[in-house]
């Protein structure tokens, strides 16, 4: 099946099996390896990407549902001021340990701040509900998002 979609601000046309997971297309065909596979069943959030500005689990999305969509991974955010703000906040708050969950956390943080630039703690927790971390515990990640929101006033 031919699908046309925007990936990190570039228009792509791919001939793919319609049932293939977006996760596999991103990692294997497009070398976008910030997108991780953890559980493969929509529970851990390591494979999170932005689809039309919303965080989604790419392991649950078949290629046929990607047609016409706008997909963004961490690779596509890296040069933005917003990303740099989140990155520095995560570093300063100690939000990263092994790093495997981090791209997913960043995507969830970015999706939250696009929608709600001034979230309270409960809203941050809800936004991160779908991201599991097995190292740091969540407090430092929540702190990281809080710090990014504080420093990024006006960015989102």
């Amino acid at each position: 099946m031919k699908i046309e979609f925007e990936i990190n601000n570039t228009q792509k046309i791919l001939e793919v099996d319609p049932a293939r997971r977006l996760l596999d297309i991103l990692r294997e065909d497009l070398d976008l390896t910030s997108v991780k596979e953890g559980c493969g069943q929509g529970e851990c959030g390591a494979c999170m990407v932005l689809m039309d500005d919303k965080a989604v689990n790419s392991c649950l999305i078949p290629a046929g549902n990607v047609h016409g969509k706008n997909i963004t991974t961490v690779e596509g955010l890296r040069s933005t001021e917003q990303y740099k703000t989140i990155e520095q906040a995560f570093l300063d708050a100690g939000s990263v340990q092994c790093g495997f969950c981090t791209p997913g956390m960043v995507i969830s943080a970015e999706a939250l701040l696009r929608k709600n630039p001034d979230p309270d703690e409960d809203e941050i927790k809800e936004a991160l509900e779908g991201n599991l971390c097995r190292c740091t515990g969540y407090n430092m990640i929540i702190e990281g998002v809080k710090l990014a929101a504080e420093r990024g006033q006006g960015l989102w």
Partner: protein
Amino acid sequence: MVKGYRPDSLQEALEIKSDHATSIIAGGTDLMVQKARGTGLKPGLKNNPLFISHLPELRKFETSDKFIRIGACLTLSELVEKGELPTPLLNAIDEIASIPLRNIATMGGNICNASPAGDTLPYLYAADARLLLQSIHEERVITLDEFIYGPGQITLESGEILTDIIIDNKAYDFNFYKKVGTSKGMALSKLSFTGLVNFDGDKISEFRAAFGAVGPTVVHSPKIEDKVTGIKIENLSDIAPEIENEYRKIISPIDDSRSTREYRLETSLRIFHNFLEEISNY
């Protein structure tokens, strides 16, 4: 290579459905997990996929004085954003999985997946939701009792697509929703319960109760509900033991990875007891 269908209209989708054996994919959040075969491998769908979640006809949301008509392929997040859903249904959706999953999962998918633990289902049963099924030849409206007959078992005919969910646009005087899971986020239900009540003065004029994940399909009983309907609120506690016992007879949970038969039975009845107490104190 597997062929996939991505029609531009509902009419085209119905024609494909009528002419070919297909696996319908809406959001994909259940199917992609059930059919997953591992990293790098495409999910093992039985038939060629028919993608419908983008179809504008299935993404409509209409309200009138009497009804709310929900397009089967609106995502759970989109439904919450509409701000017009009944409170207990909103509460149920709010506790489903996580934001990213709700951004892709659809209500039509939750119904057609027909899991006894589907969290929108108890409300839809309690509120007498109807389903609009369309094929190229006809359309029919059926109840959830007629549609779901077992775990994952539905009476969708081969050429049919679930297009809309229709609920009455009415508020209840007392709404009750409770889900028991291992954590607030991401947990699949061990069990859930929805109760809806209307009062007429000091009487209970309408009484609805539906239990999720404690039987092969959602457990509810118009017969038991009728026994409560019409009685005075102050007399509810007198018949409560009898009513609870009636439900005990029809609740038939299983042991699985999420919980045990005994826990599900006792906890769902305790939640129901609590529901009755709250009505008495209303």
